[in-house]
């Protein structure tokens, strides 16, 4: 089967950065401060008030980003809706579990219904009346890459436009658990959502495409895997313009940066995107939007490699290429 080109026809992110409805945000991006908070749009502009009242943060962000993507690409219905999430709807899960521990008798149904990982994909589908393929991937820190791979295979299979994205939600207990485990994350644990329309044909303003995506569990050597990935895409390290990486281990980050700086890349072009997004399992989706936005603001950029080593046992590699005007 011939591989399609996977054009990024629309991208929408809600994060700590001014990403939402703001093409060119990569010019004004800055590292997260300790008291930084999410920059959210007016959700009422995207979601009916009757539905909005039931939705937790992760659902509001997901539906708003999904609808923003559809508006950007002038698409009424995508052929499929695919979502990646590492930890799912934590707020409703916690609410339901707390209620089940403290309340005797009947339990309120809303938090139970909306506690499952596939609620985002389901709510997006309901909000636009979509009856297509609807899938949720949960593979820890590689959830987004698996969702993206699914979308790419559907395009290979003949579908035209896929809504694919990722979302995760922070709740206080994550900080408590990190404390119990003696983990002190260098960046803020947080929430965010990023959605994309990936299509088999470019729009007039499409600037980037997904060339390849490879989620790997337990790679023997990350540098070998990166070299293999570049080789299968007929590239070498010197031909990569930017590396956007996520890693919590300084020695691992150093190894990644060395791999590319030794090939001639400026250290400034090896960017730890967690400094901008904060930490959540599907931050690689932020990385992809960031990459596409960099290409929009600087048309000389050809190749951006996203290296997701947020969890040291996993490696997600995504290659974003510019689309010739």
């Amino acid at each position: 089967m011939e591989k399609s080109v996977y054009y990024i026809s629309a991208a929408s992110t809600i994060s700590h950065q001014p990403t939402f409805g703001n093409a060119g945000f990569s010019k004004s991006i800055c590292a997260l401060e300790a008291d930084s908070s999410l920059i959210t749009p007016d959700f009422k502009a995207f979601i009916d008030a009757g539905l909005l009242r039931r939705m937790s943060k992760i659902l509001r962000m997901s539906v708003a980003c999904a609808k923003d993507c559809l508006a950007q690409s002038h698409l009424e219905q995508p052929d499929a809706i695919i979502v990646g999430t590492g930890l799912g709807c934590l707020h409703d899960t916690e609410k339901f579990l707390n209620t089940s521990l403290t309340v005797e008798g009947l339990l309120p149904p809303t938090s139970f219904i909306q506690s499952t990982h596939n609620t985002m994909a389901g709510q997006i589908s309901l909000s636009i009346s979509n009856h297509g393929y609807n899938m949720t991937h949960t593979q820890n820190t590689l959830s987004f890459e698996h969702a993206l791979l699914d979308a790419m295979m559907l395009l290979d299979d003949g579908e035209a436009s896929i809504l694919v994205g990722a979302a995760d939600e922070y709740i206080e207990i994550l900080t408590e658990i990190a404390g119990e485990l003696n983990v002190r994350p260098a960046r803020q644990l947080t929430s965010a959502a990023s959605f994309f329309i990936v299509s088999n044909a470019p729009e007039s303003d499409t600037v980037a495409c997904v060339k390849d995506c490879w989620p790997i569990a337990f790679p023997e050597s990350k540098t070998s895997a990166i070299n293999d990935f570049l080789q299968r895409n007929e590239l070498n390290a010197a031909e990569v313009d930017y590396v956007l990486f996520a890693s919590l281990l300084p020695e691992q980050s150093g190894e990644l940066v060395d791999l590319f700086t030794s090939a001639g890349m400026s250290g400034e072009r090896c960017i730890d995107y967690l400094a901008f997004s904060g930490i959540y399992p599907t931050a690689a989706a932020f990385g992809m939007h960031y990459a596409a936005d960099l290409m929009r603001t600087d048309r000389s950029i050809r190749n951006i490699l996203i290296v997701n080593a947020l969890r040291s046992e996993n490696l997600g590699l995504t290659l974003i290429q510019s689309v010739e005007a």
Partner: protein
Amino acid sequence: MDTLKEDLKKQIIEQLNLEDITPADIADDSLLFNDEGLGLDSIDALELIVLLEKYHGIQVTKPEEGKEAFKSVNTMAEYIRKRKS
């Protein structure tokens, strides 16, 4: 002022997370499941069943009773008083 009805309005707002709505916005006789009223739906009906048990200790065991009881704040108050008498 009927305290039970005022309490019910506050409980409905909290249980159903009715943002931007105050007790004063809910008329005693407005139809809860009508778009001209609060526009509630089937999930809200389940939440109202939970509300009656949580705040008033009343279990709705017959679905046909709920259908009548949940028409408005008036009918809910009437149902609670009847069950407690």
